[in-house]
C-alpha cells in the first residue's frame, strides 16, 4: 500500500493555488521551521467572500497536499462558511491521511483561521480609523 492516497499525491504533485497575493486582504501563518512545518495563506476578500486564495508551505507531502486542498475548499466561499472549515473536512476530502500526518490538516485549518483573524483585525482597525 502506498504511503498516501491518490488524492493526496495528486494535490502534492499538482498543488492548486500556489503562490503569493501581494495585496492580500488577510495573511495567516502557522507552524515553525523547528518542527518542520510552516503554512502561509493569503486571502483576497470581497463582500465577505473569498475571491482568491494562495498558499506557501514548507513541509512534507501531506502538509503541501493539505494546504492545496484547503485552498480549494474555501475559494469562492462566504466567510461564514470558511470559518467553519475543520481539519476533519480537509482530511476527508483528501481520502484520509496516515495517523501521524493528521497534524498537517490541523495546520491547514489553523492557517485559514489565522488569516480570518487577521482579516477581522484589519477591518476593525479600518473601521476605527474611519470613525
Amino acid at each position, binding site marked *: 500500500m502506498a504511503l498516501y492516497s491518490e488524492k493526496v*499525491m495528486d494535490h*502534492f*504533485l499538482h*498543488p492548486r493555488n*500556489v*503562490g*503569493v497575493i501581494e495585496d492580500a486582504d488577510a495573511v495567516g*501563518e502557522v507552524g515553525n*521551521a*523547528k*518542527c*518542520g*512545518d*510552516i*503554512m*502561509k495563506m493569503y486571502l483576497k476578500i470581497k463582500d465577505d467572500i473569498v475571491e482568491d486564495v494562495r*498558499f*506557501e*508551505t*514548507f*513541509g*512534507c*507531502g501531506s*502538509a*503541501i497536499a493539505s494546504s492545496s486542498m484547503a485552498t480549494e475548499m474555501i475559494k469562492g466561499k462566504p466567510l461564514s462558511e470558511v470559518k467553519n472549515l475543520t481539519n476533519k473536512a480537509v482530511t476527508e476530502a483528501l481520502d484520509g491521511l496516515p495517523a*501521524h*500526518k493528521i497534524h498537517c490538516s490541523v495546520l491547514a485549518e489553523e492557517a485559514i483561521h489565522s488569516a480570518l483573524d487577521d482579516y477581522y483585525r484589519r477591518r476593525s482597525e479600518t473601521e476605527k480609523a474611519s470613525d
Partner: protein
Amino acid sequence: MNIYADHAATTAMSEAAIDAMTRCMREEYGNPSSLYKIGQRAKEVLEQAREDVASVIGAEPREVYFTSGGSEADNQAIRSAALAGKKKGKNHIISTAFEHHAVLHTLEQLKAEGFEVTLLDVHENGVVRPEEVEAAIRPETCLVTVMYANNEIGTIQPIREIGAICRARQVLFHTDAVQAAGPLAIDVQAENIDYLSASAHKFHGPKGTGFLYARKGVPLIPLINGGAQEKNRRAGTENLPGIVGMAAALKETVALRDAEAARLTKLRDRLIEGLKEIPHSALNGDAEKRLPGNVSFCFEGIEGESLLLLLDEKGISASSGSACTSGSLDPSHVLLAIGRVHDVAHGSLRLTLGRENTPEDVEYIISAVKNVVSYLRGFSPVWRDLQSGKTPFIL
C-alpha cells in the same frame, strides 16, 4: 528511469547469493544438528560459511556466531559485555551520540538497569576523537562501543586507534560494522576489536541474516535460549540458506572491493561536487573520512519528505533524516549530533550509491535534485524569509 540510491538502507541480492541460497534450499534441507549424512552435510555447509565469513575479517571460524542480523548482534555483544562487567562491579559504558538505535536503545535499557552511559561527541565532521575515548575511560568502564561507519552520514571512525586504547586500558571494545563490513577492509586482530556486528543485506546478501564476531574468551551470553546451536550462544536451528547466501555475497563483495571502492569514490565525489552547486546547501560529515558511496546533504528552506517523494516521482530512491520520515517530531539524531539545527536538519537528503549505479545515474540525480530543491523553495515561506533577509541563512 529507475535509480536505486539507498544502498545504506538495503541492497539488491547478488546473483551469486541467490544461486547459493536456492541450491542450499533444494539440496541441503538437513538439520545441521542431525547425525545422519544429510544432516552432517548441512553442518559442513554451515561450517564452510563460517570459515568464509571469518577469513574476511581476520577471525577464527569459532569466533563467528550467526545471528538474525545487525541489531541482534549489537544487542548480544553489548548486553554480554555489560553483564560481565556488572559482576566485577563495572557499570560504565562509553559510546557515541550518533550510534544506530540498535545500540542506543540497548544502552537506554541498560541505563534503566543501573548502568552509567557516556555518549561521546562526534563533532561537526561526524568523527569521534580517540583522545576523548581515552579520557572517558574510568576504572569502572566495562565496554566501549563505537560504530565503524555511520549509516546516515557515512563517516568512518578511527577504529584502529580506539581499539588500541581499549586494549591498553583492558576495556572490551565493540563496533557496529553494519555499514562497513563488505565495503571496507576490516582486520579484527590488527584493529583490536573484541566484538563486531554485521548484516548480510547491506552487502547484497539476504535480509534476516547477520553475524557477531566475538573474540575468543570474551563474555558472550545467549539472548535466545534453547538448543546447543552456535556453541550454546544462540539457540534455534540455523538459518542455513540465509547464512550460505550471506557468505556468498560477502565473498563476492570482498573480491570486488578495491575496484568498487575506487569507482564509487569517484561517483560520490562527483555527486557531492554537483550538489554543492545548489546555493545554501552543505555536505553532512567529513568529506574524506566517509564510505565510498555515501552522500548526505542539507538544503536550507525545504523539508526532506517532500524532496524524497518528488525524487521518487523522477525514479530516484533516496532517504532523509527529516522528522516526517522518521515518524517522530525530531529530525535524525545523527544530524543533530553533528550540530545541524532542527530547521536545517529537516531538509536533509541521503543518497547512497552502490554496485549498480553509473556515472549517468549521478548526472541524472544531480539535475533532478537541483530541479526539485528549486521547485520546493519556490513556494516555501521559509525560503522567502531567508531570501528577503527577514531571517538569516544558516548554511
